[in-house]
Each structure stands twice: as structure tokens, then as C-alpha cells.
């Protein structure tokens, strides 16, 4: 038996999924921040806190906008927004490869000094997230 799920239900599930993933990231960021603070690592505490606050703001924005769109009868995602997301994520991925290459080179040459591997990974992940946001904002306004 095939169960049919309408587009509105899919959008509601999508909002709930985004909120759950966001909550995981907020909890992880908060734990990272508290743990770093307890060890006296102020940079780690600030980074973890910033991640938690950024994701919290993002989750509130997604929840409010998503609910408003659903109430007004618009889909959460349509073919244009999907295409923007695809282009932004693929470009962010390609450019972040160069970013990782540059980080690796600068680190091996001693130009950038990382405390440990987790700090290098955090910087790279932050860079990828910023690149994605920049490309999304660009393609959101551009002819595609």
C-alpha cells in the first residue's frame, strides 16, 4: 500500500528536522563552550558559544519564517530555492577544497599555528559555513 504525503506535511517534517538538528548543534556548542571555559581555554569557549548562538538565531528564524509561509499557503522550498541551494552548496564545496589546501599549506609552513587538530577542523568548518552563506546570498539575488 502506497501512503501519500502532501507537500504541506513534508514542509512541516522539514521544519521539525531542521529544529532537531539545530538543537543538537546548540547543545554541542554549549557543551564545548562550558568545557573549554572550565579548562581555561577562552578562545574555545567563545567559539563554542558563538556557534550555539548563531545556530539558535538561525533556528528561530527558520521556525518563524517556515510557519508564516505555511500559514500563507506557500511551499517552504520550490524549484528555484532548491536550485539556489544546490548551486550554493556545490560552489562552497569546491572553494572550500582550496581553503583546506591553503590552511594545510600555511600550517605546514608554520605561518598559521594551530593549538591542536580540533582547532584546525573548527576553522575549516567555519570557513565552509561562511562560504556557503556568501554563495547562497549571491545566487539568491542572481539570475539562475
Amino acid at each position: 500500500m502506497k501512503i501519500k504525503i502532501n507537500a504541506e506535511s513534508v514542509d512541516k517534517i522539514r521544519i521539525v528536522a531542521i529544529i532537531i538538528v539545530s538543537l543538537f548543534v546548540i547543545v554541542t556548542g554549549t557543551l564545548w563552550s562550558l568545557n573549554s571555559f572550565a579548562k581555561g581555554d577562552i578562545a574555545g569557549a567563545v567559539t563554542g558559544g558563538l556557534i550555539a548562538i548563531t545556530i539558535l538565531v538561525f533556528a528561530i528564524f527558520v521556525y518563524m519564517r517556515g510557519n508564516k509561509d505555511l500559514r500563507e499557503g506557500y511551499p517552504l522550498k520550490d524549484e528555484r530555492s532548491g536550485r539556489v541551494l544546490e548551486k550554493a552548496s556545490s560552489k562552497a564545496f569546491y572553494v572550500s577544497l582550496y581553503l583546506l589546501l591553503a590552511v594545510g599549506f600555511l600550517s605546514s609552513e608554520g605561518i598559521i599555528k594551530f593549538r591542536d587538530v580540533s582547532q584546525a577542523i573548527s576553522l575549516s568548518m567555519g570557513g565552509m559555513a561562511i562560504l556557503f552563506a556568501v554563495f547562497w546570498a549571491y545566487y539568491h539575488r542572481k539570475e539562475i
Partner: protein
Amino acid sequence: MKTRIKELRARYDFTQEDLAKKVGVRRETIVFLEKGKYNPSLRLAHDIARILKTRIDELFIFEDN
């Protein structure tokens, strides 16, 4: 690419919101379509043409060089 969406939408007294809801897209997609800044899928072009009671080739005008 030029479109006649705005002209035909006005003829049937549809707002951008009305048309967006009828074809199941977000309002900004209709805005970009009317500006000629978005190439829709064949499915969306077909749906808009059907709602505006016209043909796809009358709705979207491609200017050859």
C-alpha cells in the same frame, strides 16, 4: 528571455501571490520569472501557461542573437 506573465496575470486579475499559490511556488520565484531572471522547468512553465490560458511559446519569448 522575456515573459508575458505580468501582462497575462493582470488580464486575469491575479496577484503574484495568487499565481504563486496556484502553481505551488514561492512568490519570489514569480518575481524573478517576471523579470526574466529565472529559467523555469518545463513543468513550471507548463503549469503557468495552463493557469494563464496560453501556450508556453507565447508566454516565454527568447531573443535570438
